[in-house]
């Protein structure tokens, strides 16, 4: 019998502090098997005695059986995850959902826009692009954070620059910040893309989508070449509980990555 709610054991191998609120966890399943996920998928992580929550996988499946999660301490479970040390065990269900369009994007240019913690799911795709660089065209990465000290994966920005253009911005700079200041949409006018060859993907806080989509349209990117990663509270992960529903769609099954044309008529989507 297939037990959808039975978690697999996974061991925490490494914990790395990224910012004051986010930590990066490296895990491996206890049985040593790879997770077999697609970039952009998520898992349900359970901390025993506390609860379970959905977390995006932020490493690429091309990087071996270990996988990574970037967790912000914000609720009961995520705060409990932050207390865990290397050697501790968590439960993993999944991977669930439909990830980024790795096949459809082959041979195309890519415009990736991440806001804040949206970098976590997008990093799985960026790593995938690094490992399969020759399959894809020009790559442009836009990344907006609130403050310089909240930028995730700071030490990997140079790697991201090595596969394409990478523009960073912060909403509020500080005395050490030399780069661009302003919300992520202010980067769009300086970016040059060929709209008919480009697939645009955006991940960010809910408020961001409306504005970044407007910029994508201004650039002339067709609606069916835009993908949005709509994260909701995927409580069960298997399309039963309805917490993550956007009208009739289950984010945990049909999403979290949607083509814009699939969700543009839905009032609860954006």
């Amino acid at each position, binding site marked *: 019998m297939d037990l959808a709610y039975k978690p697999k054991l996974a061991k925490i191998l490494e914990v790395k502090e990224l910012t004051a609120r986010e930590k990066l966890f490296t895990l491996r399943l206890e049985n040593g098997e790879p997770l077999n996920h697609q970039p952009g998928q998520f898992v349900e992580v359970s901390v025993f005695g506390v609860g379970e*929550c959905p977390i995006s996988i932020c490493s690429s499946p091309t990087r071996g059986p270990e996988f990574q999660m970037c967790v*912000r301490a*914000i*609720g009961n479970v*995520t705060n409990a995850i932050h207390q865990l040390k290397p050697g501790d065990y968590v439960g993993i269900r999944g991977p669930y959902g439909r990830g980024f369009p790795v096949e459809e994007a082959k041979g195309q240019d890519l415009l990736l826009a991440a806001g804040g*913690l949206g970098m976590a799911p997008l990093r799985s795709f960026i790593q995938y692009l690094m490992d399969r660089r020759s399959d894809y065209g020009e790559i442009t990465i836009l990344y907006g954070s609130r403050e310089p000290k909240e930028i995730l994966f700071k030490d990997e920005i140079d790697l991201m620059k090595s596969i394409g253009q990478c523009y960073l911005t912060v909403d509020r700079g500080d005395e050490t910040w030399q780069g661009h200041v302003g919300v992520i949409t202010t980067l769009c006018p300086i970016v040059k893309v060929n709209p008919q060859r480009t697939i645009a993907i955006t991940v960010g*806080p*809910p*408020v961001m989508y409306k504005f970044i989509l407007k910029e994508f349209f201004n650039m002339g990117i067709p609606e069916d070449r835009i993908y949005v990663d709509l*994260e*909701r*509270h995927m409580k069960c992960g298997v399309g039963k509980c*309805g*917490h993550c*529903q*956007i*009208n*009739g769609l289950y984010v945990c099954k049909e999403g979290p990555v949607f083509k814009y044309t699939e969700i543009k008529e839905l009032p*609860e989507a954006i």
Partner: protein
Amino acid sequence: MEINLKEGVRFRTWDGCMLVDFAKVAGGENFRPTTVQRLRHRFLRKGKYLLDRYGKVGCVGCGRCTRHCLVKINPVEVYNGVYNRI
């Protein structure tokens, strides 16, 4: 479950799509903050979304909600109305 593996508690909490934090995410955003949105979602889910997906409505028409509703909403009528309109 206690550590002696003999005692424990069974702990359950209410949850439902009409409760205010049903569609809330950890970041603080609530995707259905108003009663209207939640009511609309409840009736459309049972009367349309599940029908479209599985070919059956999510209500068996037992009439318990109708009997207990203080403001005399009859869900069966609502589902029939939904069905006739869309």
